[in-house]
């Protein structure tokens, strides 16, 4: 787990948290980020409602240890509530102090039960219990922190009568730990004691201690809508949340719906908002529309049918343009044609003169015997073995045809688009005699409703003048919704009848689209698409044309599944070499 960046990119939470909960208890939770507040001194606490968890996306002030450890401690605590908790308590006529104490007892109860199953949890939580005995005056806050510690740690010594009584009652109730009613009963009583001791309990300043514990919102069913007339604790808690709720701010910034509706809890999830008004996508030349889900890393699930791929026909260009571009690469083409033919040759080839192999090579054996008879050292390499070759994979070359491809990179004399076109042409030309399963497709997007997809050469189509004309007519505009294009290409490829299926992606940078402002969103979606493709037997490899995008490319395709090109003229050669390498 890496520390999330704090430079304004606060919604990213490490992915280990929900898996940890699943590993412990076998149920799934949705982990969302609780963003930082403007006021860093306002105490933040994790929160849960049903199986939705909100965890601080950055380390809290004054919390010891590493941030990942803290997240796991919080997850372990909340998941203990989910596993061992009862239906939510009713507030009825309880005072704020009683609510706080009942919650505290409930925290201790579920933690005890969870630690009985997983003893190591106790050690996970221990570092966050600080020693509140030296806090000076006995305030409600310090006494509650001391009680929390006393209920957690049997070795802890506390001379305060109220804390000792709380611990004693709690431990005596051991047989009833399975029942949350115990906490309600003890908590009400202890709250009364606190009142009689004239100890002040200021609900406004109260933040649950220790800091890994949730803010108790998920434990209580408030009688009335927590509004102006709510009890101090409730209204304080709720206002705090509203301040932290990032939705309104992000709505102004035009965040995708994806990021918006995750802020709504499961219990009051907004119906999906209708798509924003937008100019209808150009329907000219649209041959087919397919909808695909999109992965939202914040809610860790798919948004079904979220994106639409529109297949466009290609306006042909001049095929002579392709032939002209290829003249530069004549020597490479020769070499690649040869290797492609070698790859295509699936006849078993014998490897002779081996020290060890399947069969004796008769002529070599006779030579060895003759050599020995004439007292010369015999050549011991008398075996042969037959080598079988795997058939070359079905290959789909997927080109990112977004606006940025029209750029002329520094030091180059032509656009990225031109280089990509030549590279595709060289690949298709070199492979045409070897007749592999090859398709060349491209995509560019204009929001989630219009992911344009074009087929320059499809499987089972010859690479003839018509295909060359389509390739020549290739143009680049709009954006890069990579994940959806990967899904569409993956579907196409998965349907091929081949032993191996390879999706070779050429892109010049990070995925992006006009309706997405969180740079991580499309990266995680593309990563998910790659994983889904792999599941259906399609492996992916990416050629990146921008060394600056290495991090996101590695994230999407995985280490070892990408190559970065700094020298653009090398792309045609490299692409064909990659094909040979990946096919062998």
């Amino acid at each position, binding site marked *: 787990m890496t520390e999330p960046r704090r430079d304004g990119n606060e919604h990213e939470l490490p992915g*280990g948290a929900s898996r*940890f909960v699943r*590993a412990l208890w076998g149920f*799934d939770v949705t982990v969302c980020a609780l963003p930082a507040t403007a006021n860093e001194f306002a105490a933040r606490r994790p929160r849960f409602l049903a199986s939705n968890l909100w965890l601080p996306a950055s380390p809290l002030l004054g919390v010891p240890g590493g941030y990942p450890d803290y997240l796991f401690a919080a997850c372990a605590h909340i998941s203990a509530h989910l596993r061992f908790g009862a239906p939510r308590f009713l507030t009825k006529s309880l005072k704020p102090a009683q609510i706080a104490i009942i919650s505290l007892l409930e925290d201790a109860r579920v933690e005890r039960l969870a630690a009985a199953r*997983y003893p*190591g949890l106790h050690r*996970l939580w221990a570092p966050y219990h600080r020693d509140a005995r030296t806090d000076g005056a006995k305030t409600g806050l310090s006494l509650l922190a001391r009680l929390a510690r006393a209920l957690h740690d049997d070795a802890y010594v506390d001379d305060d009568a109220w804390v000792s009584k709380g611990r004693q009652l709690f431990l005596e109730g051991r047989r009833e730990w399975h029942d949350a009613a115990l906490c309600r009963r003890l908590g009400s009583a202890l709250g009364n004691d606190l009142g009689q001791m004239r100890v002040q309990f200021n609900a406004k300043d109260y933040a649950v201690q220790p800091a890994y514990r949730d803010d108790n919102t998920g434990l209580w069913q408030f009688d009335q809508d927590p509004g102006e007339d709510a009890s101090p604790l409730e209204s304080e808690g709720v206002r705090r949340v509203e301040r932290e709720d990032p939705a309104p701010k992000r709505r102004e910034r035009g965040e995708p719906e994806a990021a918006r509706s995750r802020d709504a809890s499961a219990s009051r999830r907004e119906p999906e908002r209708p798509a924003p008004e937008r100019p209808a996508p150009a329907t000219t030349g649209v041959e087919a529309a397919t909808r695909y889900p999109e992965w939202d890393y914040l809610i860790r699930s798919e948004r079904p049918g979220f994106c639409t791929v529109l297949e466009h026909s290609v306006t042909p260009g001049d095929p002579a343009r392709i032939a002209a571009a290829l003249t530069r690469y004549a020597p490479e083409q020769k070499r690649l044609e040869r290797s492609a033919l070698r790859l295509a040759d699936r006849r078993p080839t014998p490897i002779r003169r081996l020290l060890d192999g399947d069969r004796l090579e008769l002529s070599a*054996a006779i030579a060895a*015997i003759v050599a020995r008879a004439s007292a010369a050292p015999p050549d011991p390499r008398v075996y042969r073995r*037959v080598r079988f070759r795997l058939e070359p994979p079905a290959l789909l070359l997927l080109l990112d045809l977004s606006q940025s491809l029209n750029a002329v990179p520094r030091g180059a004399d032509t656009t990225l688009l031109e280089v990509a076109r030549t590279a595709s042409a060289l690949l298709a030309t070199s492979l045409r005699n070897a007749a592999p399963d090859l398709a060349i497709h491209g995509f560019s997007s204009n929001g989630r409703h219009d992911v344009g997809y074009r087929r320059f050469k499809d499987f089972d189509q010859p690479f003839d003048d018509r295909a060359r004309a389509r390739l020549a007519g290739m143009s680049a505009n709009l954006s890069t919704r990579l994940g959806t294009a990967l899904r569409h290409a993956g579907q196409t490829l998965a349907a091929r009848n081949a032993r191996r299926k390879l999706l070779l992606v050429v892109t010049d940078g990070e995925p992006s689209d006009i309706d997405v402002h969180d740079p991580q969103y499309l990266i995680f979606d593309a990563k998910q698409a790659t994983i889904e493709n792999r599941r259906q037997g399609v492996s992916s490899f990416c050629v990146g044309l921008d060394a600056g995008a290495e991090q996101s490319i590695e994230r999407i395709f995985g280490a070892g599944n990408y190559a970065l090109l700094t020298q653009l003229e090398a792309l045609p050669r490299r692409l064909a070499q990659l094909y040979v390498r990946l096919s062998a």
Partner: protein
Amino acid sequence: MSAEALDAFRIRDEPYYLALADEVSLFGAAYAARLPVMLKGPTGCGKTRFVQHMAWRLNRPLITVACNEEMSASDLLGRYLLEDGATRWQDGPLTLAARSGAICYLDEVVEARQDTLVVIHPLTDDRRLLSLPARSEAIQAHPEFHLVVSHNPGYQSALKDLKPSTKQRFGALEFDYPARAQEIEILMHETALPEALAERLVSVAEAARRLKGHGLDEGISTRMLVHAGSLIRQGIGPEAACQMALVQPLTDDPDLISALSASVRACL
């Protein structure tokens, strides 16, 4: 093949195996009926140990072949060798087993190419015949000869599967990780760990198995638990042993590693 050489394949001491259900009697019946057996199940759940145990029980030599893509028919059948100026035929493991009445165990059989596996076809129907084209010879299998194969349906993609014509020659036994109490017992037997620690290691495995399909292709196997236990017996701390034997071998994904490491700490 001389009797002494075959003796090397005999299993002298009882291999420890804790029966999970009725697999021992089922295998015994299949052996009596000379029905080839396929063992299915996740890696490290005890398939190979089971075969060793059954070979010992039935008092048959056990010849094991770990299958791989490079394996050719002659790796199974045999080949001519050159010796003292003359050629000598050397039986391959399958031929040796068929001649001498051993149990031949093809481990991870789907890893072998399908055209290699067809050599077992005449052996596995009522003909029980093995043909050696290189010697122009056909061997009638020894009455005690028995063929067992194993494969793991989990992580193999649709690409790697047995031909139906191969599959249908076998009776199949499905294996899975042992139930909690049994796995604790196995772990204590194999590593002599105290019960409390064995229980905790099994909890780690159970936690990881819940992540199968949620990022993990396979959960922590019984074999991996035994590895962890052996490291602990060498004096390694439980957490370090779990890291080395359970967490790190399982995945390279940093999120999963952190989730698994936290689960280890929660369990220990």
